[in-house]
């Protein structure tokens, strides 16, 4: 096990279970899950498709409530959505009637940050994600990768305590995906944040993570943790990378 850079506990999931109820009965999705995330850590939740990864994020962001157990962020129990917890979506979920600038400044704007200040802040994040010059463009005219950059800038611009990313590159083509992985690494290097990143792609997980939390199949819980200490930027084809990839892929539950 490797040393974690900071020891300040930010996210704590303790004995969390979540079940959905319908006419056929209980449908447990998360079963007795516990893990912690520390300040400025980039943690990847990695697991097979449909295992309940998105549900875990929804519990952390407060879009869903736990059936039993407890989720805390900076010591506060999560009991609903809050601007303290940002989310980057699988589908970009941009506000199509707002241009890039207005999308990015949405959070500060609804919270009453004065225009001059929020414009400055939004511009900083627009520049950070590489969308300089597209401030006045409407999302419909942007490519999938650019739309996802807007989503990332929008989450960062709200300056949340944690940022959750739910398979943000799942819908992108392979080439754009590699590019965006590099971009996320650059962005999270430039602006240190506590990030939880969900994916079912082993390569993406190893490329980005400080720590990978491997999840079991549904109903899910933590199967194993991996601290990734390969130097950044990581090389997809290095021997260590490939060995890790094989190890983690083999450890993952198989689903048909």
């Amino acid at each position, binding site marked *: 096990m490797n040393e974690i850079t900071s020891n300040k506990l930010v996210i704590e999931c303790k004995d969390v279970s979540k079940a959905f109820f319908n006419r056929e009965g209980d449908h447990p999705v998360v079963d007795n899950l516990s893990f912690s995330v520390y300040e400025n850590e980039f943690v990847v939740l990695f697991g097979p498709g449909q295992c309940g990864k998105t549900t875990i994020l929804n519990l952390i962001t*407060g879009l869903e409530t736990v059936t039993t157990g407890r989720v805390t962020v900076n010591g506060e129990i999560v009991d609903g959505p809050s601007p303290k917890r940002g989310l980057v979506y699988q589908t970009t979920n941009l*506000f199509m*009637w707002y241009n890039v600038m207005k999308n990015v400044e949405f959070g500060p704007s609804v919270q009453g940050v004065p225009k001059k200040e929020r414009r400055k802040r939004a511009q900083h994040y627009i520049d950070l994600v590489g969308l300089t010059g597209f401030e006045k463009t*409407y999302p*419909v*005219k942007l490519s999938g990768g650019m739309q996802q950059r807007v989503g990332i800038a929008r989450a960062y611009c709200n300056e949340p305590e944690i940022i959750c990313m739910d398979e943000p590159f799942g819908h992108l083509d392979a080439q754009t995906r590699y590019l965006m992985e590099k971009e996320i690494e650059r962005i999270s290097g430039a602006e240190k944040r506590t990030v939880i990143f969900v994916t079912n792609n082993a390569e993406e997980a190893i490329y980005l993570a400080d720590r990978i939390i491997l999840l079991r199949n549904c109903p899910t819980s933590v199967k194993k943790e991996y601290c990734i200490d390969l130097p950044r930027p990581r090389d997809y084809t290095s021997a260590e990378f490939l060995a890790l990839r094989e190890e983690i892929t083999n450890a993952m539950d198989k689903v048909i």
Partner: protein
Amino acid sequence: MNMKKRITEGIKNLCLSLVGFAVILLLWAFIVQYTDAGLLIPSPLGVAQRLIYVITHPIGKSYTLPMHLVISLRRVMTGYCLSIVAGVLLGVSMGRLEMIQAIFRPIFEIIRPIPGVAWIPMAIVWFGIGETAKVFIIFMGGFVNIVVNTFAGAQRVDEDLMNCARMLGANERQVFFRIVIPFCVPYIFSGLQVGLSTCWMAVLAAEMVAAKEGVGWIITAGQDIADMTQIFVGIIAIAVTGLALAAILRLAEQILCRWRVRGK
């Protein structure tokens, strides 16, 4: 290249539509000139001359053609604006609030298939033959279409999108004005388009039944004195005005919904 192609395509279509108009006009002139139909149909030249004449000279006792148009337009706009306010309010609240939907939807579904003109007898009994009756008939014509479309839009607002706004710190009022309403705007506009044409039809119907002025009246007055030219003048005025109103609305839509336009 592409732009150039689009322009030549546009010119070609314009020429073809002009050819269409010319054929109709020639056919019309020919029929009037060489058949007995000339007794029942005025000649195109006659209609054109009369059109120009009535711009400055009154039809009937007091109003010129532009004055009649202004009177009709004022009625339409009063009824139409009222139907926009009421229609958008009811449509959005039915789409977003289940209780409102439960209360109003059954009533609305009963009113919905009734065409605006079917309200004419009722409106005259309730409000007499004054302006109120006409505005009411126009209102009923527009209202139904605007509610139907706004309701469809408000129901389709993406739950994820609203949650996304909430997670960024928006309260419910901000979610409503910044997410729900903009999301509905394209739907509202399709309601406004249909609503405008039904309102325009309703004013003519209302004026043909009970009025002493307005473009609808021009037609019935023409019928009363067997002046076919006057009827044609009325019909042409109605068509051109209807077209112009729709074009203005389309322009407004293009400006308000420019975020939907793809391409460079």
